[in-house]
């Protein structure tokens, strides 16, 4: 079907749910043309994690789609152009910028806006809502001059906003709540009490039972007046008093709406006009507005199913939640409030530690109905499963909140869940689906499971359960093999990498705090440092103490305690001018020079304090770090190729330079070497490298997983006669696969030797894309490539970083007196040890 006569689906609103709908519809079928109108000035972003905008995440980080996604998918997106009218008779929408677009099917995903109560003075300067990136920009700007600031509303979103006030450095932050407790929809008074105590410790002041009468002041807010005749002086107010569905467009078009707002839909998410659907926070489904993202995704799925002749329907959604509010775990699940005589309630409270747990069980003590967890919600997932699957309780149900006192864990384990237990509610994945993926498709990691079943790709809340299920299934089948990193982490490198990516962890301390124990060691610190570098490509100098000594000083430590300096010489090609610079620098700092096996020049014997000066001179002359100190790409060796050699088929030097410059600086489990030869004579010894590229009549042959070193191994053929662009694509995939799955300090050859299925499996993954990861890996690699910076340049230009390169911190100019050299063939040499 050509684009012109495909039926047209118009989506109004490019928020979280509208975007998910486009993704799911594109994945399900290509028989529609999708046209999206969004009011906000940017494509959809992750509103759930909006607050992280104040913690260093950029709008770009929060974006839900990669640049170019809409073009690639052929989805037409009009941003900053809201629809202002729907003409249902002619089946047209009119946008503000004047676009008139016809539709066959229309999907309203207009979300909701902050509910702003009708209080006098509410329009004053300094009063904000908390919903979009633009709102946050305004708040950040205004907060610079504010000392006293409050959030109106102590619900889930209000407390998020309060955290933002803390992050913005407000000196007197308040939370004002109308009800007699915090989070009135999720938790009870006793729970609120514990939560208040913990929040107060963090500097938040909490005012309950406060009904606001007026916002007073001149042009800007100065005071808030309450019904009980008290008042509060404020510079700034953020309103978070609930949400109001954006149903104005639907009203205007004469669609049915609820008495308290929301676009009325049936179980197929159809509005009163069968050609128009409504999903997400604007929809009134099963008599309520669902203010969470998971039910919105479910609604999107329902509409996709309707459009593709499925018969999925929406029958309500579990609103159990678990969140970390300002560092405090808060969870509420099942029927959180039911009390005697309909049930028995068991409460555990530790005021000292700030922990509150309540569970409600049936009067006969056999089933769990729901509960509340504050301060420690580790048991949330399994308790929720116990409710949803009506699992039997242990003989002493209080064990569920007290934890088992000695012996095995109380209550049901993951493996006791019934097959149909819903593990991932965002993507509707059952326990059976997960176990089957492990048994029949050989999935052994969370990342693999995401690919295979999509479990864990939504809110991510089920990931711990998914992990336990994978481990449990493997164990039950006697396939329990795990290479834990060291005594401090119970994970393999791959598992830790998955976790770090998933939870967006940026520092070693955070990783150790979340998943480790003890104080770390020389094994896990550099392993985590390498993972962090592979994931985020931040300058490793930001966390110097977890780097191996070589990475800490960006140079290789040598016998005698001096360092070596190895600038990058891509492909081994160097101009006479640069050679002269190397000679001059070596002479000036009295360095030993040697040509390395990787076609570059190594300068040995540098004092730690001289390193920044040496590099400054080299960088001025156009050199950059060679990463000889890092577990990273070393060199791509090349033969001279067709430019000079009479046998040469292609320009091997140019290609080697291109490849070396592409992957320079990228951190990996171990060092990586490459080679490019201009013909089958193989002068560059490419088949002894982690990747080797050899020219053929028709293109290039690509070899991978070769190794020199103590156990030499030839690289094996991955693909034949491919063009340069394909070489790069395959290399991207191959390297990302290696970086994400190899154990620490494992070269590609060993990694392949341990791989189930060996080379044919690797070929399937890289060439045939059997895991469906190719696009993601290529994109991830491109991100790493784009974020490359020369680490030495950053050090040289930063006086604070430079300062670290001293031997004695109390005598920065003094060199290590224990360093001394012998002479050999007219150069220095390290003293024997």
């Amino acid at each position, binding site marked *: 079907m050509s684009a012109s006569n495909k039926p047209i689906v118009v989506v109004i609103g490019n928020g979280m749910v509208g975007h998910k709908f486009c993704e799911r519809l594109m994945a399900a079928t290509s028989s529609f043309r999708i046209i999206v109108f969004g009011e906000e000035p940017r494509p959809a972003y992750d509103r759930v994690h909006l607050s992280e905008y104040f913690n260093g995440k950029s709008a770009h980080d929060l974006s839900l789609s990669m640049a170019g996604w809409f073009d690639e998918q052929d989805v037409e997106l009009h941003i900053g152009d809201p629809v202002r009218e729907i003409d249902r008779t002619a089946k047209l929408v009119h946008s503000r910028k004047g676009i008139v677009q016809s539709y066959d099917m229309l999907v309203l995903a207009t979300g909701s806006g902050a509910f702003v109560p009708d209080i006098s003075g509410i329009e004053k300067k300094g009063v904000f809502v908390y919903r979009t990136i633009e709102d946050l920009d305004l708040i950040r700007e205004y907060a610079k001059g504010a000392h006293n600031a409050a959030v109106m509303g102590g619900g889930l979103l209000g407390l998020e906003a309060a955290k933002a006030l803390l992050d913005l450095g407000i000196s007197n932050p308040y939370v004002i709540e109308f009800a007699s407790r915090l989070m009135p929809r999720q938790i009870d008074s006793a729970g609120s009490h514990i939560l208040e105590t913990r929040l107060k410790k963090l500097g938040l002041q909490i005012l309950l039972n406060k009904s606001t009468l007026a916002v007073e002041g001149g042009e800007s807010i100065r005071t808030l007046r309450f019904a009980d005749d008290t008042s509060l002086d404020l510079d700034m107010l953020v309103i978070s008093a609930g949400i109001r569905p954006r149903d104005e467009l639907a009203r205007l078009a004469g669609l049915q709406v609820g008495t308290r707002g929301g676009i009325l839909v049936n179980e197929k998410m159809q509005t009163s006009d069968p050609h128009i659907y409504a999903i997400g926070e604007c929809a009134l489904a099963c008599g309520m507005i669902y203010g969470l993202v998971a039910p919105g995704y479910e609604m999107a799925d329902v509409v996709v199913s309707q459009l593709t002749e499925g018969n999925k329907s929406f029958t309500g959604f579990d609103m159990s939640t678990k969140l970390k509010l300002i560092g405090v775990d808060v969870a509420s699940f099942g029927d959180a409030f039911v009390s005697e005589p309909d049930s028995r309630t068991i409460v555990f409270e530790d005021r000292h530690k700030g922990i509150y747990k309540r569970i409600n069980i049936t009067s006969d003590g056999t089933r769990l109905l729901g509960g509340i967890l504050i301060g420690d919600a580790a048991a949330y997932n399994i308790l929720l499963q116990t409710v949803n699957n009506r699992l039997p309780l242990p003989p002493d149900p209080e064990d569920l909140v007290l934890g088992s006192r000695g012996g095995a864990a109380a209550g049901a384990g993951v493996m006791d869940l019934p097959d149909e237990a819903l593990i991932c509610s965002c993507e509707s994945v059952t326990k059976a689906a997960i176990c089957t993926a492990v048994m029949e498709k050989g999935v052994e990691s969370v990342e693999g499971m995401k690919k295979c079943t999509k479990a864990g790709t939504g809110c991510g809340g089920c990931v711990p359960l998914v992990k336990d299920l994978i481990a449990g299934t493997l164990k039950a089948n006697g396939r329990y093999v795990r290479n834990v990193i060291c*005594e*401090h982490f119970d994970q393999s490198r791959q598992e830790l990498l998955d976790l770090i990516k998933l939870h967006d962890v940026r520092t070693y*301390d955070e990783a150790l705090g979340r998943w480790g124990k*003890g*104080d*770390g*060691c*020389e094994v*896990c*610190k*550099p392993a985590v440092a390498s993972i962090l570098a592979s994931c985020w490509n931040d300058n490793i100098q930001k966390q*110097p*103490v*977890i780097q*191996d*000594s*070589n990475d*800490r*000083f960006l140079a290789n*430590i040598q016998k*005698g*305690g001096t360092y070596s300096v190895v600038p990058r010489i891509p492909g081994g090609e160097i101009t006479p001018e640069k050679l002269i610079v190397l000679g001059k620098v070596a002479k000036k700092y009295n360095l030993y020079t040697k040509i390395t096996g990787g076609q570059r020049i190594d300068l040995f014997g540098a004092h730690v304090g001289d390193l920044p000066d040496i590099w400054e001179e080299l960088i001025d002359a156009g050199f950059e770090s060679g990463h000889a100190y890092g577990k990273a790409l070393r060199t791509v060796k090349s033969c001279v190729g067709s430019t000079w050699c009479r046998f040469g088929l292609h320009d091997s030097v140019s290609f080697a330079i291109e490849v070396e410059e592409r992957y320079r600086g990228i951190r990996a489990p171990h060092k990586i070497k490459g080679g490019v030869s201009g013909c089958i004579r193989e002068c560059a010894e490419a088949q002894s490298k982690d990747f080797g590229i050899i020219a053929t009549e028709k293109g290039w042959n690509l070899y991978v997983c070769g190794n020199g070193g103590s156990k030499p191994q030839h690289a094996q053929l991955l693909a034949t006669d491919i063009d340069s662009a394909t070489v790069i694509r395959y290399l991207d995939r191959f390297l990302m696969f290696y970086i994400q799955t190899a154990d620490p300090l494992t070269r590609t050859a060993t990694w392949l030797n341990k791989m189930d299925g060996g080379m044919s499996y690797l070929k399937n993954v890289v060439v045939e894309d059997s895991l469906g990861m190719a696009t993601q890996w290529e994109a991830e690699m491109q991100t790493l490539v784009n974020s490359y910076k020369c680490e030495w340049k950053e050090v040289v230009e930063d006086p604070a970083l430079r300062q*670290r390169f001293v*031997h*004695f*911190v*109390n*005598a920065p100019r*003094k060199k*290590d007196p*224990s*360093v001394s050299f012998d002479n050999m063939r007219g150069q220095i040499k390290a003293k024997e*040890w």
Partner: protein
Amino acid sequence: METNTTSYNNPGAIAGSTPNGSAPKWRFACQVEDIPSDGGACVSLNEEQIAIFNFSRRGQWYATENRCPHKQQMALSRGMTGSLGEQCEPKVACPFHKKTFSLVTGECLTGEDYKIRTYPVKIKDGKIYIGM
């Protein structure tokens, strides 16, 4: 401002530094901020090279000689710190061959017969003093 003194007198340190049992003499080494947190750096005191470690995860300070007894390299201050076992014995790993040493007793923890000297540390008003 009130003065703020904390001493880190681990038993091994006193024994190691004052074999005759006399009280250590405190020498000013450097400022607190000269030592990276959860890492080490070297100072020159009395013509000796002393490695100082800021074990900030546990709020502890340690000092040892900078020389690794394995190949006599002045390198321990550049080593990585960490802990061993359930007891969380604080340790440092030499960057050369990764032999590890207890920061409390100076004992080699990787099964060899080496020992390094350790020293008591005192922090006062943001300044670090080593007992020698």
